[in-house]
């Protein structure tokens, strides 16, 4: 082992020690609904039959209920009001549940077979007695929570008409401490804030987490070497690569829908920010915009043929769209406010979200493809909108008691939630895609 290797080994050991000590520092999020629909759908989620002790005491129905209620669109019957607790659709006496004020009933059971658990459920229409959905999931006992989220996704879809986004994850940045001695953590958690895991911890800023379309990778910006650099990191293995650490700004990564390319912002030493596309396999770099203004915050169109981006080429920042095959064709897409920045396209391509200024307040705006724009939020420092994979909800960074906090708003404006953090500030949320089937 030569001296350099030895030094590296020593450095690693020192860092490891820090790692273990620093690990518990994290922000746990708790969801509060701050506004729901005026007429939520009444539903009974009956406790599931248990598989004692293999299920570890996990209450599947409670998680399904919390998911559905947190959507703001359902009102669940209290368990104490249930006259019976059936666990199969065949045992559900629809009339009883209907007279209890319910439109729907969810029943289910957990059973053990070897080291695996089976979770089955049925959704029954209490008005007609008809079974609307049934599904069986196989899970390790540790994965019952994910099975519960998948059940909630399916119940939501059968009743609302759009797949739920409960069995998904979010990435966000938590910031601890007061300036100038702050510390930063990149965290990935379940969409309900549970199971937070630290992906990266640093004394220097971490920014702009972006999910690959398959949900296996994150791209982000880290200033850990005191310059900005863009990294990609595989979540499962922790393997990561620094893909851009050029002179000047390296920022705002966004994965192409096929996962092969990264749109990002570079400035070079001249300091002129423009949008580029980096081919991850070949490292080939293609310049997309060429303008003396700030061009940044690229976001891919769903077909991968165009990029939306922020530019202040006309004075204040506005959102533009450029076709990759014809980079001269640049079209402005936001109007109306003096500040519209940081575009994000809904996964279904139907809506575009961005940060917009109203008076002195920065809020989350959304517009459809015809350009009909609405402001969805009422905060003063709202930023970083990110769509749920079903396109129904946006998560964004706002403020609670002067602290950075995450909030959600439905695209129809009817439902808002707050994700409370038990410590530190949280910001820059990015909602991940559905897991591959």
């Amino acid at each position, binding site marked *: 082992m030569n001296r350099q290797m030895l030094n*590296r080994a020593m*450095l*690693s050991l020192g*860092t*490891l020690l820090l790692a273990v000590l*620093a*690990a518990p520092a994290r922000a746990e999020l708790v969801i509060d609904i701050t506004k729901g629909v005026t007429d939520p759908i009444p539903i009974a989620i009956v406790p599931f039959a248990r598989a004692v002790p293999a299920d*570890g005491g*996990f209450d599947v129905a409670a998680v399904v209920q919390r998911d559905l209620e947190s959507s703001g669109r359902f009102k669940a019957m209290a368990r104490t009001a249930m006259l019976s607790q059936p666990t199969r659709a065949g045992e559900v006496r629809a009339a009883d549940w209907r007279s209890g004020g319910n439109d729907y009933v969810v029943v289910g059971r957990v059973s053990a077979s070897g080291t695996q658990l089976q979770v089955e459920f049925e959704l029954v229409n209490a008005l007609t007695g008809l079974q609307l959905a049934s599904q069986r999931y196989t899970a*390790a*006992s*540790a994965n*019952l929570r*994910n099975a519960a989220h998948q059940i909630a996704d399916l119940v939501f879809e059968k009743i609302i008409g759009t797949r739920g986004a409960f069995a998904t*994850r979010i990435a966000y940045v938590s910031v601890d401490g007061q*300036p*100038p001695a702050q510390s930063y*953590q990149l965290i990935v958690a379940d969409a309900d804030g549970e*199971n*937070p*895991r630290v*992906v*990266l*911890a*640093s*004394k220097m800023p971490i*920014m702009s987490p972006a999910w690959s379309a398959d949900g296996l990778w994150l791209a982000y910006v*880290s*200033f*850990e*070497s*005191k*310059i*900005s650099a863009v990294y990609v990191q595989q*979540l*499962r*293995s*922790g*393997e*990561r690569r*620094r893909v851009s650490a050029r002179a000047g*700004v390296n*920022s705002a990564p966004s994965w192409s829908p096929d996962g092969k390319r990264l749109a990002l*912002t570079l*400035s070079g*030493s001249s*300091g002129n*920010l423009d949008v580029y596309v980096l081919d991850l396999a070949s490292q080939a770099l293609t310049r997309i915009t060429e303008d003396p203004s*700030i061009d*940044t*915050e690229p976001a891919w169109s769903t077909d991968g043929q165009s990029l939306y981006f*922020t530019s*202040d080429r006309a004075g204040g920042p506005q959102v533009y769209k450029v076709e990759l095959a014809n980079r001269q064709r640049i079209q402005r897409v936001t109007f109306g406010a003096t*500040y519209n*920045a*940081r575009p994000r396209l809904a996964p279904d391509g139907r809506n575009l979200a961005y940060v917009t200024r109203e008076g002195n307040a920065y809020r989350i705006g959304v517009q459809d493809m015809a350009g009909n724009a609405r402001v969805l939020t009422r905060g*003063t*420092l709202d*930023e970083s909108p990110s769509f749920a994979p079903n396109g129904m909800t946006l998560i964004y960074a706002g403020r609670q008691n*002067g602290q950075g906090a995450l909030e959600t708003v439905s695209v129809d404006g009817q439902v808002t939630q707050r994700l409370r953090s038990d410590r530190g500030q949280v910001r820059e949320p990015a909602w991940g895609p559905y897991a591959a089937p």
Partner: protein
Amino acid sequence: MRNNRLGWIVVISVLALAGCGRNARLPADGGATATPPADASSSGADSGAASAGAGSATADASANEAAVQPDNRIIYFDFDSSEIRAEFVDAVATHARRLAGNNSIRVRLEGHTDERGSPEYNIGLGERRAQAVRRALMLQGVAESQLTTVSYGEERAAQAGSSEEAWAKNRRVELVYLN
């Protein structure tokens, strides 16, 4: 049991570091390490606390730079502006004389914004401020090779809070002498 878990954490972390060393060529002063979070499918309702900490690591920027900069090494800016205000023209000229007189001195120009607006667009505004100081220094004889810029946007506030006073303290370029 607890010891076993710790051992497992360390092993995973070593693997992660090995991966970093090979792929990322991290600079010695950075030392940030990425974490392989425990596979999502392997964590139960009550294992969150233990696994959340597994293998996380810390990037420690060099502490010696945390020393407070004297005020004359900070240039403040108006809202949405990258123009050097008249009151800071002399300070910039003083730096320019020092740098032009000894071209072995190197300075990093760190641009910052207040917290309002989109973080990535603010990276652009912070860079614009750092470039304004860079151009002013170069016009006064400082060599390009003596200057580097970095923009932290709104990410590294000098003062916490959402008051006009805090915002004014945060819209700035800091000149950091590297030698």
